């Protein structure tokens, strides 16, 4: 079953500029594998090893997947997946060495 995945600007180089692409999977993990099959390279931008990257947010039907089971979050027909990079930064720790 296909769900719609909204792709942020920075990852549209992997989707030929498309803002949204269909992908299949019964879990978020399967969905990302399916995305990777059609848009090689995108998986690495979403995952850090076995986990979602800290500064990439994924929402299923507007719920942050960190609260719905992460990569095991189940997906069904007509679900909508949104990928958004975190907007974050800051001065960071004061470094003694630089």
């Amino acid at each position, binding site marked *: 079953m296909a769900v719609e995945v909204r792709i942020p*600007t920075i990852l549209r180089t992997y989707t030929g500029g498309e803002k949204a692409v269909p992908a299949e999977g019964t879990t978020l993990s399967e969905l990302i594998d399916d995305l990777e099959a059609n848009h090689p390279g995108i998986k690495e931008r979403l995952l850090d090893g076995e986990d979602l990257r800290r*500064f990439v947010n994924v929402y299923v039907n507007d719920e*942050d997947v960190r609260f719905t089971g992460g990569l095991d979050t189940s997906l069904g027909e007509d679900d909508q997946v949104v990928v958004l*990079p*975190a*907007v974050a*930064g*800051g*001065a*960071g720790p004061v470094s003694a060495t630089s």
Partner: protein
Amino acid sequence: MLQIYGDILDAIIAHAKQDHPNEACGVVAGPEGTDRPERFVPMLNAAASPTFYEFEPTDLLRLYREMDSRDEEPVVIYHSHTATEAYPSRTDIGLAQEPNAHYVLVSTREHGNSPGPVELRSYRIVDGEVTEEDVAVIAPTEPSG
């Protein structure tokens, strides 16, 4: 070059002063493809920290949905540094994920919450590459018709 209305710049600076000593953050949205920052949207710094900022993930989704429905994009992403200069840190560079945005930095290190001039500078941050750009202040236009 970043062209931005004076009243929006003032609003960014006021937000930075208000949240000092924590970092303040937000966006100025504008019609997609125009490079015109028009709608000031201050955001909550979920980190509530003097050295880090992050939009709260639920607020982030709401913001992007709202921009989507208005055919807008984040033309400016701003935040403050409260003890250091208005120059992108390694953290800023590593986490910059909007290649089309102007990253505006304000330093409140000199006057904190008090009135007084601040350092405000603008950058493009693409693939880890920082390019500073001029900031041109333009007068607000009269609302039309």
